[in-house]
């Protein structure tokens, strides 16, 4: 203001200052965003207290998509929980499948054959890729850049085509089973996958060319929504959000599960933890996911045909060909379906690195066919909790991209 004030005369300046200093009696405005707001993908409601355009305070109200995941799981058999885990994070359903089944396998002390493990990693990385594509694509959409969003969605469609070929459904995969997988990958899948990966790389390059060097994009992301690493840790935030703040914590490296210790990949980390870092980390993670997927394909071809699940009659249903013709297997099939696996009594917590952070399953069994407790540690919900801290003092327009980078998925957040 001082620059312009010099142009005024002394007397005018005094009045002008008076005007600025006079109490205009402004009030904070409370704005209701959501539950169905086009900018909040996912049903969530914000009560934003605004001073002009800057956010003074924020109350996040979640739960609009609560479907009683845990209650449903606790009233069915262990087997019947698997389709419900698809519906947690519907951008990367396989990750939740893998997490749940691995937690049950931990209770049963089962080891899945190599081929099954590599296929699980392949599915997980494709799912992670589609999740990050949605996040980065939608972030551009929030910043009024429509085209990169379409490139991101096109790449996601290609990924989902692959997942459909692998699992039978684009979104709700229901692919992983306790002790293995529903079925092996189809014939010719590796070459199809490689073709698609090349296409996705091309789309990611175009995506990068359109936005990454663009000053408007950088200016909108840099310095917004930042939160320091100590606060993030105190809030239990994990995943790309934590890595963007410079903490190299990735469960695939920190506590390698499946075959991640045999795979060569890097963990990208940021510096300050603002939206710009989050964007760059996600973009780099997509490249790493493609790298992992290629290594999986190589390994799967080298392994050759083999079993994808354990030969343990406690968890695997008998081969269908024998069910039709043999009394013994027929009885076994009836027992397997009506009772389901009996999981030994005990408790286990197993966490995997999902696209949003640590996706954990805490299971309690009392030795019967029904779980006592199926607790899902939802990264979306826990990452959303410090959202008010991230946006307080910032502009309303920056709230939306920040929310996007948290990548709250309603199904997982509200369960």
């Amino acid at each position, binding site marked *: 203001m001082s620059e312009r004030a010099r142009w005024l005369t002394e007397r005018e300046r005094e009045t002008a200052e008076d005007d600025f200093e006079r109490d205009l009696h402004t009030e904070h405005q409370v704005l209701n965003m959501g539950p169905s707001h086009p900018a909040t993908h996912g049903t969530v409601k914000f009560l934003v207290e605004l001073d002009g355009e800057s956010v003074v305070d924020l109350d996040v109200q979640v739960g609009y998509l609560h479907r009683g995941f845990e209650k449903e799981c606790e009233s069915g058999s262990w087997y019947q929980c698997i389709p419900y885990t698809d519906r947690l994070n519907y951008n990367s359903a396989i990750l939740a499948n893998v997490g749940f089944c691995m937690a049950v396998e931990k209770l049963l002390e089962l080891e899945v054959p190599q081929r099954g493990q590599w296929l699980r990693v392949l599915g997980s990385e494709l799912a992670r890729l589609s999740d990050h594509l949605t996040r980065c694509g939608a972030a551009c959409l929030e910043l009024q850049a429509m085209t990169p969003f379409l490139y991101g969605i096109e790449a996601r469609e290609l990924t989902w085509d692959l997942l459909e070929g692998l699992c039978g459904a684009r979104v709700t995969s229901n692919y992983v089973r306790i002790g293995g997988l529903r079925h092996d990958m189809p014939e010719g899948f590796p070459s199809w996958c490689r073709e698609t990966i090349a296409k996705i790389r091309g789309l990611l390059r175009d995506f990068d060319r359109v936005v990454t060097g663009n000053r408007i994009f950088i200016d909108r992301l840099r310095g917004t929504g930042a939160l320091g690493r100590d606060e993030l840790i105190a809030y239990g935030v994990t995943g790309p959000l934590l890595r963007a703040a410079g903490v190299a914590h990735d469960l695939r490296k920190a506590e390698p599960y499946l075959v991640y210790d045999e795979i060569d990949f890097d963990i990208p980390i940021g510096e300050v933890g603002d939206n710009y870092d989050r964007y760059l980390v996600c973009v780099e993670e997509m490249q790493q996911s493609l790298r992992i997927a290629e290594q999986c394909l190589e390994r799967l071809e080298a392994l050759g045909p083999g079993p994808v699940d354990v030969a343990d009659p406690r968890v695997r249903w008998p081969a269908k060909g024998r069910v039709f013709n043999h009394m013994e297997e027929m009885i076994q099939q009836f027992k397997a379906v009506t009772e389901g696996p009996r999981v030994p009594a005990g408790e286990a917590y197993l966490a995997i690195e999902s696209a949003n952070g640590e996706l*954990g399953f805490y299971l309690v069994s009392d030795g019967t066919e029904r779980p006592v407790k199926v607790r899902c540690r939802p990264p979306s919900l826990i990452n*959303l*909790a410090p959202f008010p801290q991230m946006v307080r003092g910032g502009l309303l327009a920056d709230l939306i991209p920040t929310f996007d980078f948290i990548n709250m998925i309603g199904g997982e957040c509200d369960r």
Partner: protein
Amino acid sequence: MEDHGSPVLRRLIDVHAAAVEATHARFGDVTACVQRAHLARVLCFLRDDPECGFEMLVDLCAVDYLEQGRTPRFEVVYHLLSLASGRRLRIRAGVPEDDCTVDSVVELWPAADWMEREVWDLYGIRFDGHPDLRRLLLYEEFEGHPLRKDYPKERRQPIVGPGSAGG
């Protein structure tokens, strides 16, 4: 008390011997069952002690053991993680049905804010000292706590809001 080869558990038993009721490390998950009265003190120790250094509260949930006939009926479960050492620790504490309260740990980890609200919402366990113990996932007019085992799955709740008869 057995420490199952875990230095963290050893340290906890040495310092808070009276608080720890039992330990186990099945499936590699190091677990300590702690008396409810000492819970907040033990968790504070685990966060601040340099040898433990559990700076992250990963998860907080409750379990209802009604069908197993266990007393106390509920249990709150804390999962802690130390980023520096990569160690994990599970802390469990029984909560009786007639006195469903636990001391809040929001002061220690702000992450507990929403997690405690969720446990209150779904299990009806109160957290003493929580600054704002509202329901998290369900709405204020909801009756009962749905993850309790005696809450029937089929029970329907009245719809509230602008479109309903009452509102």
